[in-house]
């Protein structure tokens, strides 16, 4: 069994192959992901069983498409309505700028301790490390994030950050890092973490959360969660900072219920989550609780670049449910860390190249058999397989060139190979001769064909190609017809 602490290691998309090799050879990782993904797939299937899923997905896709079509306008309206509600709005071009803004707010309040609700955008910009450098301690309060942080890891899934760990590993982490008694009883562990976190909520100077939907028409920030840590983070400390990507905006309040219904069912197979928070302002006079200040930090980090491309734009529909990874046969086998990116799995493979460039992430768009499971379950109908192919085009320099690092995989050898394929497949006589020749040379075929034959036998070219078989078949039939006449 793998020790939990051994896993203090860094992952990078450049090392996808090596990391995949390691994960595939780790029975614990394999079993943890398989079991978890099987469970999540079954729960999603059950919870949608009495819904007209296709109609709901169509609705979800249209809501997101409408929001994206009006994105610049909606962001302005969001800003204006948030400000009218007393929420201070900040714009950040990239993660570093967002970190500086957040640090600035913390420093203005002389904050030493920050409590965090779950936020993948904060992971994207490595906010915790940035705050630590400034002497500000950031503690994760989502149970999964808390475990991952205790174990000095990063999330392996966008919804369930500690899904790579099993009960025993979690028990060991809690024991080693917090002195919690060694147990397999999940209730005892949860209660221990709850007690540990409760004190920290009370002592925190600032709470930082993400946002699931930012409603432009009302200036409302919606936060979907199950543990109540989101509500504590956004309600207990005197200052609340919400940080999110610019694509999270929706136009109207009535857009939220369908997206929420799709999100919870697609993510965890729940009809509703335990908590659904709608944050519309700081504490008003006469109110007894809530933060005195609420800030919204809107982060671009490559998103407006994606927005410029009418095909890649679909990437921004995502509502971060994680269903694509739950159903991905590659993710299920290699796990989230193998991708080496904040967002793993299919959505990560179409999003991270924009954030990190194709040079870093060139193995991600190819890490898919294009089986289509991700696109089939996506609640907002993102054509993920098509976007993976689009990024492959960009990688080999046959796209529109507007993804950073476009053309990085173009090699003379590979171009020559595909040009050769093109020549052969557009010269039918040569093709037929080639097929015939392959059949004749059948016995000379090598029994080893690179990686293919490490796991499978080599396919043997048939002695007679279909082209030739059909000719023979048609001649025989003509003869038969002759005879019967």
């Amino acid at each position: 069994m793998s020790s939990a602490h051994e896993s203090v290691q860094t992952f990078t998309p450049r090392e996808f192959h090596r990391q995949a090799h390691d994960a595939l050879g780790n029975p614990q990782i394999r079993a943890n992901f398989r079991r978890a993904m099987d469970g999540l797939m079954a729960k999603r299937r059950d919870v949608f069983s009495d819904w007209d899923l296709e109609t709901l997905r169509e609705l979800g896709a249209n809501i997101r498409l409408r929001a994206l079509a009006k994105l610049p306008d909606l962001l302005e309206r969001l800003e204006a309505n948030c400000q009218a509600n007393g929420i201070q709005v900040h714009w950040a071009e990239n993660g570093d700028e967002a970190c500086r803004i957040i640090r600035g707010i913390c420093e203005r309040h002389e904050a030493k301790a920050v409590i965090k609700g779950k936020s993948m955008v904060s992971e994207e910009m490595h906010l915790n490390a940035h705050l630590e450098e400034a002497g500000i301690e950031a503690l994760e309060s989502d149970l999964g994030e808390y475990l991952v942080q205790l174990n000095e890891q990063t999330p392996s899934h966008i919804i369930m950050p500690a899904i790579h760990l099993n009960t025993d590993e979690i028990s060991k982490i809690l024991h080693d890092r917090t002195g919690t008694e060694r147990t397999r009883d999940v209730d005892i562990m949860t209660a221990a973490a709850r007690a540990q976190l409760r004190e920290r909520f009370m002592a925190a100077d600032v709470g930082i959360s993400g946002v699931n939907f930012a409603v432009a028409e009302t200036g409302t920030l919606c936060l979907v969660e199950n543990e109540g840590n989101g509500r504590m983070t956004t309600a207990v400390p005197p200052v609340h900072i919400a940080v999110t990507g610019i694509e999270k905006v929706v136009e109207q309040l009535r857009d939220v219920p369908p997206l929420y219904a799709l999100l919870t069912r697609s993510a965890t197979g729940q009809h509703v989550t335990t908590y659904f928070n709608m944050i519309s302002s700081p504490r008003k006079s006469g109110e007894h609780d809530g933060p005195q200040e609420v800030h919204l930090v809107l982060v671009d980090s490559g998103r407006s670049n994606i927005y410029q491309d009418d095909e890649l734009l679909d990437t921004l529909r995502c509502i971060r449910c994680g269903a694509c990874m739950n159903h991905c046969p590659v993710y299920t086998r290699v796990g989230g860390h193998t991708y080496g990116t904040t967002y793993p799995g299919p959505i990560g493979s179409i999003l991270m190249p924009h954030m990190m460039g194709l040079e870093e992430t060139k193995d991600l768009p190819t890490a898919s058999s294009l089986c289509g499971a991700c696109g089939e379950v996506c609640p907002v109908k993102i054509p993920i397989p098509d976007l993976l192919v689009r990024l492959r085009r960009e990688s080999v320099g046959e796209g529109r060139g507007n993804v950073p690092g476009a053309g990085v995989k173009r090699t003379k050898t590979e171009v020559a190979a595909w040009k050769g394929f093109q020549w052969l497949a557009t010269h039918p006589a040569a093709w037929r001769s080639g097929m015939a020749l392959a059949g004749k040379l059948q016995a000379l075929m090598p029994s080893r064909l690179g990686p293919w034959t490490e796991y499978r036998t080599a396919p043997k070219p048939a002695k007679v190609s279909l082209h030739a078989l059909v000719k023979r078949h048609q001649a025989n039939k003509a003869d038969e017809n002759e005879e019967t006449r």
Partner: protein
Amino acid sequence: MTSVKLYPPKPEKVYLFGTCLIDLFYPQAGLDAIRLLEREGIEVLYPQDQTCCGQPAYTSGYHDEARAVAAAQLDLFSEPWPIVVPSGSCGGMMRIHYPQLFAGTDRETLAGEVAGRIYELTEFLVHVCHLRLEDQGPSERVAMHTSCSARREMGLAETGPALLARMGQVELAEQARAAECCGFGGTFAVRHPEVSAAMVEDKTQAIAATGATRFVTSDCGCLMNIAGRFEQQDKAIKGEHIASYLWRRTS
């Protein structure tokens, strides 16, 4: 994923697009597909100038090359007959991706017209031929692997099993995670060999666990992958294209 398709009455003639994998490795499956169609009274036209649908270049990102190859195929089907493809993968390429590939070019209309005539073999046999089968083979349990392209891209999860259900002596073995990819994925198997291997290993285990001694599939990519894995492990489980399986047991 797929829109509702209205099926035409059984035509006098069809084209067969045999696919490059069948041409090179499994020609018998192509011939058996032709025989099944001919038995239904349909004349099968096989343009000798056909090569490959272009999918390997397409999914690798080489769309200029894929377009050139696809363009050469577009010219082969000038009469208005349906085009039957014994593969969900190549069928999906031609039905779904040809229109995308030629969008905005002078061949856009032709690509759309050809795409509208593409039928995967089992789809055509079920929905157009309303095929009846008189099974003469021995009683047998068989597993079926429907390719991801047939299942998701073309929306044909049911047509293969529906044909097997018409075989009196054949029992379709229920398989764990039947909808999961076998790990072939064209160049994926070569670019990510270890991940692909883990996937095909699970697929062969799921098929073996059914107790079936044979599996059928309507895609030769999956066949090459799954059967190749069984063979390397010296397992007695054999794979066969569904066209061959149906023809062999009913002729």
